[in-house]
Structure formats: structure tokens, C-alpha cells
């Protein structure tokens, strides 16, 4: 029997009110994350993937509001919680790692201070116990000579080391869910491989769930169990990772996969590209937001938002072509 989900998101819609007007950055997003699994959200800039993560953590900016949606985590509704209760959830139960560790670390405090802080505040450990635990966490993320690194300042570390420190801080209170928002995007490819390997190892040892947000299908292929593909604020496809790559159901997914140049293929003159540009959230095309860039688009795509059509037990796509024989 399948384990009940750790996180369940139903019909999440987030609106932003800005000077130019208001728009929905995320529309009707639903998904689940089961214990010990990795769900990847893949999408381009403006697809709503990071806003989805911020909404889960209730860390949306002031200009944003959750218009609809239900977020259940570990059997309770997160929206019902007070800010104080939510603070306890953040860090202790759900932790987050971002793309740019330099922006998240305080430049004038030592690494030791910053790793110890959540241990002392969230877990109430004494200074001495917190220090011992902090060194253990730094070894857990494979930082060499943790005692020395405790005394260092963020600028003295490389990008990869800083990301390891951020992971150590995120893990400090033993979260059940780790949200990793483009955790390797700013890193070189060899460092990226090391960080992904570290996350995979930690996930197995600590039995965490991971919500991985990325624009990189290569990272998704290596790391995710299940995938959500987002485009212009909506989920357009949900699938186990293998099926997504073998039988993409949405033309956008298909286009993304085809435009990734292979490492070991014969030479081709041109790369298969998705024509056009990502639409502005203020000027979304009517109907399916992808239709102006879609080579399969027909009249019906310009009027209604396509519902999800099944491609497998846990695989569906929001496209009118899906589930019917290709014309």
C-alpha cells in the first residue's frame, strides 16, 4: 500500500498585486509528496515554481496573497496555523535551501554561529551542546575540518562549501521535508555532481522528502522520482520521472526534452527549438497558455483551459491531444 502523503497541495492559486495590476503567478496547482520521495518541479522563469515553494512556507512577499488552495502537511492544514506555529514548522519540519547561499548567509557572522543558531533557538540546546551538534552537521555534509570552518566567515568559503553549510543549517532540526530551490544552479558542474550526490545520500539516511525546484531537466532526470512540469503558472504535466522522459504528454515537455542537446549524438545542423517566448504574466494568451508556441495548436486550444487527461496511473497532462490518438 502506498504511504499517505506527507504534503498535499490542492488547488493552490497565488495572486500578486503590483503597480502594473494584478496577476496570478500560480494557478490551481495540486500535487502530493510522499515520505522519502523526491518531487521535482521543472519550469522556466515566471512559471510559478518558486512562488509555489514560498506559498508552502508562507513566506510570500506582501504583494502576494493565497486566493485559493489547501496545504496539508503531516496531517494538518498549514493555512490554519498562526505565524508563531508556522515558525515552528519552518526549520523544524520543513526546511529550505536556495540557489545563492551567499545571499542567505549573514556575511558578518561566523559559520559556527549560523549553524548553531537554529539549534539553540528551535531546539533550545545549550551553547556547548549546540557546538558539538553543529560540528556533527558540518561533517554530515562532508565539510573537511569542521572545527576550522566553524570559525570561518562565509566569504572565505567557495560556492560549493557555502551550499554545504546551507544544507547543514537546513538539516539542523531534522526536517521531514526539504525544499531545494535551484540548489545547484549557481555551481560548477563538478560541484553540482557532488552536491546532488550529497543530497541523495542524506535523503536515504534521514528518510526525508525533497521538493526539488529547477529549470534543469538533467538534474530532474538524475534526482526526482516524480515530476511536475509548470508553464505560465500552471502545472501542465504530472508524471513519474521515467514516463515523463519516455512518453512526454504535453507538447511543452516534449519541446523542452528535444531542445536539450545530447552529449553523445551525431552532429545536427540545428537544435529543435521551441519558437517564441515565455509569455508575460500580464498578457497571458487565452486558452492554453502554450498555444502560440505549440505546433499542434488548433482552435479549441485558444478558447478553453485544457483539463488533465490521463496517460497512466500517475501520469497526466493538461493538453487536448492527450488521451486521444494523434491526428
Amino acid at each position, binding site marked *: 500500500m502506498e504511504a499517505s502523503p506527507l504534503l498535499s497541495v490542492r488547488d493552490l492559486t497565488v495572486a500578486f498585486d503590483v503597480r502594473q495590476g494584478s496577476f496570478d503567478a500560480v494557478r490551481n496547482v495540486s500535487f502530493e509528496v510522499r515520505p522519502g520521495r523526491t518531487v521535482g518541479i521543472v519550469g522556466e522563469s515566471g512559471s510559478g515554481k518558486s512562488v509555489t515553494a514560498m506559498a508552502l512556507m508562507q513566506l510570500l512577499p506582501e504583494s502576494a496573497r493565497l486566493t485559493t488552495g489547501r496545504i496539508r502537511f503531516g496531517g494538518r492544514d498549514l493555512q490554519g496555523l498562526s505565524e508563531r506555529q508556522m515558525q515552528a514548522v519552518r526549520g523544524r519540519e520543513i526546511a529550505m535551501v536556495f540557489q545563492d547561499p551567499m545571499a542567505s548567509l549573514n556575511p558578518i557572522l561566523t559559520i559556527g554561529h549560523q549553524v548553531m543558531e537554529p539549534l539553540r533557538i528551535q531546539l533550545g540546546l545549550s551553547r556547548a551542546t549546540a557546538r558539538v551538534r553543529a560540528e556533527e552537521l558540518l561533517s554530515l555534509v562532508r565539510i573537511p575540518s569542521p572545527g576550522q570552518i566553524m570559525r570561518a566567515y562565509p566569504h572565505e568559503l567557495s560556492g560549493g562549501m557555502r551550499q554545504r553549510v546551507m544544507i547543514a543549517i537546513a538539516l539542523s532540526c531534522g526536517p521531514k521535508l526539504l525544499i531545494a530551490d535551484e540548489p545547484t544552479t549557481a555551481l560548477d*558542474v563538478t560541484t553540482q555532481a557532488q552536491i546532488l550526490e550529497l543530497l541523495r545520500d542524506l535523503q536515504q539516511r534521514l528518510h526525508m522528502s525533497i521538493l526539488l525546484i529547477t529549470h534543469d*531537466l538533467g538534474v530532474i532526470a538524475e534526482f526526482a522520482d516524480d515530476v511536475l512540469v509548470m508553464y505560465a503558472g500552471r502545472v501542465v504535466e504530472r508524471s513519474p520521472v521515467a514516463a515523463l522522459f519516455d512518453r512526454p504528454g504535453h507538447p511543452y515537455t516534449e519541446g523542452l526534452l528535444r531542445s536539450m542537446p*545530447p552529449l553523445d549524438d551525431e552532429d545536427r545542423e540545428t537544435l529543435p527549438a521551441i519558437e517564441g517566448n515565455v509569455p508575460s504574466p500580464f498578457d497571458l494568451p487565452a486558452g492554453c497558455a502554450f498555444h502560440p508556441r505549440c505546433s499542434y495548436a488548433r482552435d479549441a486550444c485558444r478558447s478553453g483551459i485544457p483539463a488533465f487527461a490521463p496517460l497512466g496511473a500517475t501520469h497526466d497532462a493538461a493538453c487536448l491531444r492527450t488521451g486521444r490518438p494523434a491526428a
Partner: protein
Amino acid sequence: MTVAAHLIRVDKLEKHYPIRASAFSRRVTGTVRAVDGVSFTIDRGETLALVGESGCGKSTTGRLLTRLIEPTSGTVRFDNIEISELDDAELRSVRKRMQLIFQDAGSSFNPRMKVGSLIAEPMRLAGQSADTCRARVEELLPLVGMAAEHAQRYPHEFSGGQRQRIGIARALALRPDFIVCDEPVSALDVSVQAQVVNLLTGLQREFGLTFLFISHDLRIVRHVANRVAVMYLGRIVEIADKATLYKSPQHPYTRALLSAVPAGRPGVVRSRTEVVGEIASARAVPPGCRYHKRCPYAMAACRTDDPELTDLGGGHQAACHLVRPLH
């Protein structure tokens, strides 16, 4: 006299920066060896890709080739002209033939200038008439996949991909022979990258352009390059035609770099060459082989002797003590 096959010939190029005791001090306490003895050639109409991790000196090399910065020593010959010996007037006339395209073209544009003026700016500076400029802009915009009317708009009205097209039009304005493309698609959305790559390779074929293509993305490089040079800490450690480099890389660093690229297919576990640690600082270049501290095959000789590039036949060279020369 016959025309040299090489458009670019770089010999023992070095760029060292002094490290001063403080910002106002004259006391030099060390040297950053950003580029440290680099030699290569680029044929007419060819694309040489320069790959490596951040801090390896690839962008500095690109700037040295166009003499945006002065080399510490070594020579750069462009079409048999030694560019470091040119006076300002001579340099200006050679520079028309060499251009740069940057990662984020948008941020280098003056936001108050219309697209037409931005594209024409290099021509105006070269003393061309307003009529010539206008006619050339009308020619250039369709060439990069934009409409002639776009000349009257401002850069902020365009998406990242379109701004990169404007940057390419501007680089083409003076009909250059040689373009340094410095991470030209890294800042773009995945779905737009392929479009811009196709535009660049199409323009190259049409106008016989020669490219130095600087990138950290080994998939894109696999698609665009004829030959690939791998840089590590200011040196080229391996150079070969594309097929050879991707199929039988000889330097342990090249192998590590290639094996770190995610496979791009779920369930495919790539055998990863283990890379420990991260790129050292160009402030403290290790003695012997620069890579020995991270290399799983390092021997005693690697700690003391700096390996030279060894000829492996067919233009393939690698700088490693384990590589046997061609007899």
C-alpha cells in the same frame, strides 16, 4: 602571399594581476595567475570552444584576444597582425573586425537608447553616416529574427532572448570576421536557448564567421564547436576536435568534467570519475600539475613537475604525465 589558415594565433599568453597588501598599498604580496601560458589557433570559419569551471580564466582569455585588457606577456595575432603592438588608431581599425557577445546583453545596453541606436552605435563610433546606419539596422533586425519596426522600441520592452538577438545584431553591425561569444545563452530560459544557438550557427555559416565560444555548458558546446579547449587554473589542459574530446578525453580533468554532466535520462547512472574538492584559487596555483590535488591518479611526479601539452596526433593535445606522446 597566401592567406594564413589561422585567423587567430595565440602564443604563451599570460595575464597576471598583482595582489596588493591593501587597496592603496604599493606593496605586492602575491600574483593572481588568471591566464598563465595559453597557446592555440583558430581557423577561419571555425568555432573553438573554451570550457572550464568558473575562475579557470576562460573569460579573461576572451578579453585578451580582443585586447579589452592588456596581456602581461605573450602574443595574439589576428589575421597575421600582432594586436598588442598596435597604436590606438590601428587597434580601432582591427577591432571593427572582432566583436564580443556577452551573457546578459540586456544589462550592457543603455536603457534610454532605442534598439536602432543601440545596434548602430558601433557604426556611429566608426564614423559612418546616419543614412548608412539606418539602412544597416533595417538589414540587421530581420537577420536576427526581429522586425525592422523594433528599431523604434526600447530594450526593456523585449524578453531576454530578444535582447540577446539585439546584442548579436549590434555585434554584426560592422561586419566582423571574429566574434568572442562569452556564455551567450547561459542566462536564457531553456526553451529559448536553442533558438539563439541556432541563430548563431546560422549566421556563422552565412557570413563565414569565426567564433571563440566560451561556455560552461558541455551540451551546448558539443553542439556548436568544431574544436574544444579545456581550461583549468589559467592553462589549457586538453585541446582536441569535438568528436575526439567527447569520445576519448585523455586528461583526468576533462574526464571528470564530462562525467559530471547529468545524463539527461532517468535510470541512466553515469560512471562518474570522482572529483574531490573544488578548483583551487588562481592566487595560489599548486606546484607541479595544477590539478594534482583533485586528481585520483596523481603520482609523485605530478606534485613537482608541471606537465606540458603533449601531442597525441590529429591536433589532440593533453597536459598530463600519464598521457603517452605520439611517436
